[in-house]
Structure formats: C-alpha cells, structure tokens
C-alpha cells in the first residue's frame, strides 16, 4: 500500500476535527491513521493524517483540506524527508516457558515492559510504522491479546519548520 503523510496545522477551535473528518467522509477519502495534538502555540493544533494513495487522490485531499477555513497549512511529508513514529501498547499473553524469549524480542525493538502480570505483559513500543508492524508480527505467534496504536506522527528532517510563517499570521485581519 502506498501511503501519504500529511501534516495539517489547524486552529484550535471547537468543531475543527469534525470539519476535517467530515471532509474525508463526504469525499470518500480513505484515512489510514489520524492523530491530533497541541503544538507549542495554544491556538494551533497539529493533525497528522495518513491516507491510502491507491484509493485516494492525494492532490485533491491536499487542496480540499486547504479550503477548510480553520485549516492553516497543509504539508505533505515524504518518507525520506521526515521522521515518522508511532506509539503502541501491546498486551501479550505469556507462558513462563517463553517469557525470556518475549523479553528478548522486546529488547530487540527497544520496547519497554510497562505492566507485568502472571499471564500477560504489556509492552510499550515507539517505532516507525514498518518496524512496529515487524514487532507485532514477531509477537503474534505468542498470542497478542490487545493492541492499541496512536497513529503516525511525523516531523520534517533538517532545520526547516512547518510553523514559522503561519504563527505570525494568526490573529491578523484577512
């Protein structure tokens, strides 16, 4: 699957997420993942949206997002130009006989044990999406009971930032 990662700066106002989600649903764009959080400027939130490039015209997504009044900026982050990370919490059933093996896998992926019980452990992993998929595949044979992923977040490599020019414009007259 070809995916495209869009970083979207939006005004931190009520209803903005609904506008963005509504755009995707009404134009039949497929979202692979969506994550939202605050930025260093309280007036601005940042969304990271991953879309499926095979079923969704990314150029249209980009242009339609820019038409939303509360959207400040849309940037497509190429895989090579950005650091991409996703956090997952994974609950795995664990028999005493394989506990050491599971912990070895966790170590190999720099995953931390954040909860441990007699029958299950919970691992916390922060990786690129591909590496995370690999970790999950490794754990699968042992019986993954529950999986939660945050969705991708991404930031451009190098000294440039997405926010510089836009924050200056906030609050000015249109």
């Amino acid at each position: 699957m070809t995916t495209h990662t869009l970083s979207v700066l939006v005004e931190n106002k009520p209803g903005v997420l609904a506008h963005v989600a509504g755009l995707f649903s009404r134009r039949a764009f497929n979202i692979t993942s969506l994550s939202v959080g605050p930025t260093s400027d309280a007036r601005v939130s940042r969304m990271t949206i991953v879309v499926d490039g095979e079923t969704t015209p990314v150029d249209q997504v980009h242009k339609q997002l820019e038409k939303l009044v509360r959207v400040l900026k849309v940037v497509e982050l190429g895989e090579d130009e950005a650091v991409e990370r996703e956090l997952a919490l994974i609950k795995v059933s664990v028999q005493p006989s394989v506990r050491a093996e599971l912990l070895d896998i966790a170590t190999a992926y720099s995953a931390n044990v954040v909860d441990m019980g007699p029958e299950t452990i919970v691992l916390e992993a922060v990786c690129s999406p591909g590496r995370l998929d690999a970790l999950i595949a490794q754990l699968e044979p042992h019986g993954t009971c529950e999986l939660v992923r945050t969705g991708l977040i991404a930031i451009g490599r190098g000294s440039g930032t997405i926010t510089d020019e836009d924050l200056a414009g906030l609050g000015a007259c249109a």
Partner: protein
Amino acid sequence: MEVTGAQALVRSLECLGVDVVFGLPGGAILPAYDPLRSSSLRHVLVRHEQGAGHAAEGYAWATGRTGVCMATSGPGATNLVTALADAYMDSVPIVAITGQVPRAMIGTDAFQESDITGITGPITKHNELVTDPGRIPAAIAEAFHIASTGRPGPVLVDLPKDILQATTTWSWPPALDLPGYRVPGPADPERIAAAARLLHQARRPVLYVGGGVIKSDSHEPLRDLAELAQAPVTTTLMARGAFPDSHPLALGMPGMHGMYAAVAALQEADLIVALGARFDDRVTGKLAAFAPKARVVHADIDPAEIGKNRAPDVAIVGDLRTVMAELARATRTIIDVEGPADTAAWVATTAGWKSSYPLRYTQAADGPLKPQHVVERLSAMTGGDAIVVAGVGQHQMHASQHFSFTRPRSWINSGGAGTMGFAVPAAMGAQIGRPGELVVAIDGDGCFQMTAQELATCAIEGLPIKVLIFNNGFLGMVRQWQELFYDERYSEVHLGTDIPDYVKLAEAYGCVGLRCEQPGDVDAVLEKALSVSDVPAVVDFRTHDAEGVFPMVPVGRPNDDIVLGPEFTPAEQQAAARREVIAK
C-alpha cells in the same frame, strides 16, 4: 455601548448593507426578532424555512449580493438544509442565521435542539456555533466575507438563545480572525501567456463557460476573448446568459441535454478553454471519452477544481474577471504580431451543425400543447428581457434550451443539487432583489407542489412573479427515464393533472390563476399573466405528457452517443454520428 447579542446581530446585518432577510421566527431565535421591529432591515416572513433558503439563493443569483435567511433551532434549522446543500453545489453566496438552544442546554437533547453545525458541515463553505456574545459582530462579518469571496458559497452562523439575550459591548467594524482563509491572488502571467499561445495555435478551439463567469461578472471579457480568438462558446446550465444565444459564435448548452453543436464541438475540439466550469458529469458524459482530442486550459478561482476530473495542460488559478481580461490582452498581443488565429473552417463546421441539427419539436395547431412552444413564445414576447427561474426536470431543460438568453443573471436554477421545488421561492427572492423587472418561474407540476406555499408570501408582499406550471401530470423526467431505460415500465410517476386545481389554488393564495390548454391560446394567456402587476400570476399550462427532452446523452455513455430524438430521421441521426468536420 452596551447592547444585547440580538441587537448586535441586527446592527451587524445593517452595517454590512443587508437590505432583506428571509425568515420565520421560533423559540430560540425569538430574541433576534425583537430588535428587528425597529430595524431598517426588511424581513420577509416565509411559510416554510426551505422557502427562506431558496429565496436567499434567488436573491443572490439575481443580484450578485449575499442572500440572508434566518430560522429557529431544531426543525427550523433543518428545514434550511436542502437550500444550503443547493447553494453549496451551485456556489451561491448566502448566509444562514439559526437560533440554537441556550449554551447550558446544548447536548442535552433539549426541546428543538439539533446539531445544525454538525449537520451542515458537509454542505456549507463554513459554519460556526458562536458561544460568546462579544463575537457576534465578528462571526457575522466573517460569514459574509467567506460567503462572498473566492468561490462563493453558503455559510451558517448558529446563535444560542442565551447569547442573543446577554449584553455585550458594541463596536464596529470587528477584526476578522480568519488566518486560514485565503482567496487566490492574481494569476501567474506565464500561465496566461501559455494559455494565449495555445489558444492562438488551436484550429478547433471551444470556450467551455461555466457558472464562474456569471459569478465573477466576466461576461464582457468573455465576449472580447471569444471574438478575438474566433472561438465558439458553449454555456453550461450554470452559465446560460453569460454569452448571448443570438451571437454567431454561441453554440448553446453542452451536456446530457445540450445542443448537438455544443456537444459535438467539445468532442472534436483540439483545445478546450474551461472558464469557471468544473467538468461535471452532466457535461462530460463518460469522462474517459470526453473531448478525446482536446488539450485543456482550465481557469478557476478554486484550486481544488483544477485536475479534479480532467487533467489540464495549462492551469490558471485566479479571479476570472482579471484572468479573462488578461487572457484577452495576451491573445491580442499575439494577434498583433502574428495575425489572427485561423479558425474559420471550424466556425463554419460548428455553424453547419447548428443549422443541420437544431432543437426540433412539432407543435400541431390543435394540440397537444408542447412545453417548448410555451418557452419559445415567452422568449419571443419578452425579447429575452426577463429573469427566468426554473426548478428541476424536463421543464428546466426545455427552459434552458428554448429561451434565448441575452444577458447574465437572467437565468436562475438548481443546477448541481437538482432541487425540486426551487423555482417559486427562488423567483420570490429574485423579484425582491430586482424589483420592477419581469421574473418568470417556469416550473413542473411536481416541483411546484413542493414549495407552492410561498405563493402566500409573494401575494402578501405584492410580488408580481409569474409562475408557468408545465402541468403534464407526471414527474416528467423520471417518466422519460422509465420510458427509455425501463422499457416503459412506469413506476410511481403519475401525479395527475387535476388535483390540485392550480387555478383555484392560485386564487386561494391571493394570486391570479389562469389556465391554457391549446397552442393558439398561449400568447393571449401569457399576455394576461404578464399584465398582472401587484400579485403573482399562476398559469396552469396543460402540456403534452409524453413529450421528452432531446437531444440526450444516455447517462454514463460517451457524448459521442448523443441521441437527437424522435423528430430526426434515422438518416439524420446517422449523419450526426459521423460528424463531419470541414477540413481547412
């Protein structure tokens, strides 16, 4: 100065130059109706909120100014939904103001509560639930700014009752806080030059003119450009009137029920210059087979329209009025040096198509009465000097095809959304926006019955609109599809011609009611209707129930499969399919 939120709302509307509001009060919007009493604003009390929405649209279509409608919360607001969806599809600038339950009750399923910003998110250019009385002036000013600039569209402002009642400090003008809203600036001169170059090189150019040309008041630069480039012009359903139908370069409407010459010209063109048009499926037919030989210049103010359906060779984003003036200038510069583009053979080809394959219907002297005949008589008797408003269906297509449009903003209809019931309330709005001009709603009997209650509003307001009902007793366009594509298995399309009695209904609403059944009576009845000056005149035209709309490109088919219709011989149809282009 301390004012209530409601006073701030009314003052804001006054300061923005609003002259009329179409609306209907109710619980949550009640506070706003109190200061309205002493305001300079004219409020038109509709009978159904959908009527208010379409009236605001008709006003906007007719005047180019932003239309305003107002409703209460819950069902009042949801009754505006169809009109908002319609305005969104046709890029009509309207502002809807809705009451909402008090802030503390939002989310509690309170009486007459509905999440109208949630409901209308996908069908508005923007909307906002205002939660601070101090923000009312800014929210209203922003709504008008967004609705009327860039690609126009509907904006909804939802006002909880308690912020209308709360006091706030009045100040004007407010600062607009729209950091994410951008209107495209001047177009790239290099793109303009590239487009002019393509236009000059083309041997078979067509200007594909959409509603954007009307909205940007670009009909004059359009005429300059067409005459300079000697390029034939097609005007879409949204652009009828942008270019006079009587002009030698006018090919008329393209698309599913377009003129043969317009459809064929686009199919054979080596260059299409799309101006404020969006390659809608009703124009292109099967997209992959549309205009296969053409390079495309696409100019639009909305960047998202560029490449949405058809990839252009030259894309120009900007305000069409400037773009077209610059394109004309660039074309003139090339012509001054290199001489005019040679399109004479092409213009002759398209003119030949116009004369060989015109609109054709037969009106027998003893009936049945054909709808096309009524439109042509109206067109002739008014000399095109009327604002024609249509609903959706056969009557709409017959009106668009057979009325000879001479000027912009003389054609108002529901294009993209296809909203039945649009005509009567939209005509009401148009008449209020342009008092003293002749406004004629051409409507179907199915459409008319959806919003006929606004005749009461029109009669009380003294609006002399004409409503010509093409009463064939059927949902005619659906009937036509069942005839053609379901082997005449008619299902739930028969309405009957006699219930209601449209003459009595008109009279009951305080209007003049007339009936016309014979072709020979059309002129006299139209004259009588046109002479009514104080209330609406409604004419029940008993039109032929089996009359179809032709030409027709069957849905989903390539435009090359255009069917001329039963008035043409098989030999003519075959000749049309061969489509000879005069070689230079």
